[in-house]
């Protein structure tokens, strides 16, 4: 009941519950009865008050540095006098020079390609396995659900750097328990799978929990009805659960895509042990290298601003596409 009430509220929050489980789908036409007017819209500052800390932190630690970075991206260092240029060095206005330099650098585009390649492997794998595990855990005959759920979730709790170090040991021939002396996990092609694999295990657990939670919140009557009609466990999973899961899968896919664009920890940690990974292997590594290795914070700022634009654009497009797809599947 409470689930239905939530759904009928004025603003169903996307993501927490799948819009696909709309009340109109429930038997008995109960939903309209609950579509009462929102209770007393009293003027209160409570929401603002509760939001304030988050907004403040967001402004302080995301917006303000962001604006500062944009400002920095239009400057460049100008050395001063002396052999090492250390007499009165200063930052001067550079116009779009930093942006032009980044856009004209083929290595920048290569780094984007490499990131897309890892994403192309990692995102579908994440969604596939997260959905598979969620459906398995939700199956009627599933045993040891609690332990299994924890086991799948656990890698998510391991910090990315530590996980990458562990995977480094697993991949390297001298220490590999999975045949590293026969398979070159850091070969020029294999390295994309190796990095994607580390990243997938890092986010699989979280996505699985999101999907599983959605599954658990679906009305059980549907499955019981299907069972009475003679549907097998597999048929219930594929024909009933999966379509109802589609909106959440959309959300999870968008999250994974954004996550993939932010690929950094895994390749950075694996870099010192693999000749296949350079310090500009993916765009964020390049930003880091520009700013903190080559000591050109301005170029780094310009590159990261370009990346933000690309990320926002990519997210918007992905969101649009996936929403269209899920709407079609809902029909």
């Amino acid at each position, binding site marked *: 009941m409470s689930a239905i009430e939530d759904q009928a509220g004025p603003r169903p929050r996307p993501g*927490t519950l799948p819009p696909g489980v709309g009340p109109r789908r429930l038997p008995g036409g109960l939903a309209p009865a609950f579509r009462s007017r929102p209770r007393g819209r009293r003027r209160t500052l409570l929401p603002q008050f509760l939001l304030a*800390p*988050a907004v403040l*932190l967001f402004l302080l630690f995301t917006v303000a540095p962001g604006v500062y970075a944009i400002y920095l991206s239009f400057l*460049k*260092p*100008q*050395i001063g*006098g*002396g*052999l*090492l*240029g*250390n007499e009165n*060095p200063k930052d001067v206005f550079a116009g779009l020079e930093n942006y032009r330099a980044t856009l004209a650098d083929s290595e920048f585009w290569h780094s984007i390609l490499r990131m897309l390649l890892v994403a192309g492997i990692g995102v579908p794998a994440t969604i596939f396995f997260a959905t598979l595990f969620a459906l398995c855990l939700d199956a009627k005959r599933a045993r040891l659900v609690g332990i299994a759920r924890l086991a799948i979730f656990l890698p998510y709790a391991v910090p990315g750097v530590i996980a990458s170090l562990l995977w*480094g*040991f697993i991949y*390297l*021939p*001298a*220490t590999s328990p999975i045949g590293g002396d026969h398979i070159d996990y850091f070969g*020029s092609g294999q390295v994309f799978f190796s990095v994607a694999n580390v990243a997938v295990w890092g986010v699989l657990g979280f996505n699985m*929990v999101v999907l*599983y*939670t959605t599954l*658990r*919140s679906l009305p059980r009557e549907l499955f019981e009805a299907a069972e009475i009609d003679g549907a097998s466990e597999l048929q219930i999973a594929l024909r009933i659960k999966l379509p109802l899961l589609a909106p959440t899968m959309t959300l999870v896919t968008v999250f994974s895509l954004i996550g993939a664009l932010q690929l950094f920890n895994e390749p950075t940690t694996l870099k*010192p*042990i*693999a*000749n*296949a*990974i*350079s*310090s*500009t292997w993916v765009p964020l590594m390049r930003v880091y*290298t520009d700013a*903190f*290795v*080559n*000591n*050109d*914070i301005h170029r780094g700022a310009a590159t990261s601003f370009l990346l933000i634009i690309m990320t926002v654009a990519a997210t918007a497009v992905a969101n649009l596409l996936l929403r269209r797809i899920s709407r079609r599947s809902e029909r």
Partner: protein
Amino acid sequence: MLGGYLKKAAILGLAATTALTTLAACGSSKDSSDGKSDGPVKLTFVNWDGGMKDVVDEWNRQNPNVQVELTKPSGTGYTLYNKLITNNRAGTNPDTTEVEYQALPALIANKVVVPIDDYVGDLSSDFDKASLAQVQFDGKTYGVPQNICPMIFFYRKDIFDQLGLKAPATWDEYAAAAETIHKHNPKQFIGNFTAVDAGWFAGLAQQAGANWWTASGSKWTVAIDDAPTRKVADYWGDLIQKGLVSPEPNWSPQWNTDMNNGTLVGWVSAQWAPNQLPGIAKDTAGKWVAAPLPAWTPGDQTVGIWGGESEAVTANSKHPAEAAKFVKWMNSSAGGAKILIEKVSAFPASKANQQLDALRTPPPFMSNQPDYNTLMAQQAGNVRTFQIWGPNANVTFDSYSNAFAAALQRKTPLSAALTEMQQATVGDMKQRGFDATG
């Protein structure tokens, strides 16, 4: 149900973040408020060498009024220097720091470290010209040299003896030994070519006669792809192509294992290796022997350096005079140098301290080679370095690891990677406004 937990966790997380931020803010304001208060002057010192604590403890015992606190950086080499450059703007750097010679110009160019001539006076009676050239620029002194790190060839004597091999005196002999070793056991290599250690390759280039940077007035000439460096790259490229040298990078778990289990039976390294080897290959203590680096022409004793550090005082320090006294004591007094030799396995740069009794015993890992430090003293006298390290050696070093790693991965000629380094270095210098050609 789990959703509820997640929500709760998120709220808790937010609360924790807020609390931590507040705490951090409090912490930093406290740090910066310390001015000229009563009580002893407190200095902070960042250094990653094992055993450095003994040096600091001794200073603290002798100087109750200037207490030094030692911290280990989160990463060595450029991880530290880049942090120093970034933190310099925030004013949060420690009072003193270790700086490897090749990184000092970059730190000076970024105004991270300050001249200390006023505090340490004339150093020319303590150090020879070659050592001072590493820390003096435009007539100012920016650090006190600690050690000299000539490149040294380390080899597993037990395995060399088995095969009837001697320490190679020339690079030709090294190549021949590489072949003998690999033929006898295809899993064994005489060594590896590391794409993560630009300083290592720079040292080899120095021996061959390269001069990556030269400066006159404020004009720079960059020649990273000069003939001597190409000779070095082609030599190693040939060994790698023949499969006689492993292309794996240093310091990885793979490399540690290979060094420990006898897959790698030689290491072109430097004076400080015995300080590192216990952590790399602990089971091989007493089996390694140090020998002079192979020469390009028989009889030529020139060697390059790999590493070597000075201690510098930062621009953020509120007590530069005390900090400068501390670093001078550590690196030029007999008391400081003795502990550096015994605990940090350093070979001192200060002339007088090269005669210290402490150098009569080898580092613990080399107990089988009693005259280890005699060899170091000899080799320290044969050192040849570049005329000057460029103000952007960080860019060069990063480019080295990218270009050489890619060349090893794709099995393309190493000398092409030199071109990439040259272009990256010159391009960066020009962009910053240096008058650079090359």
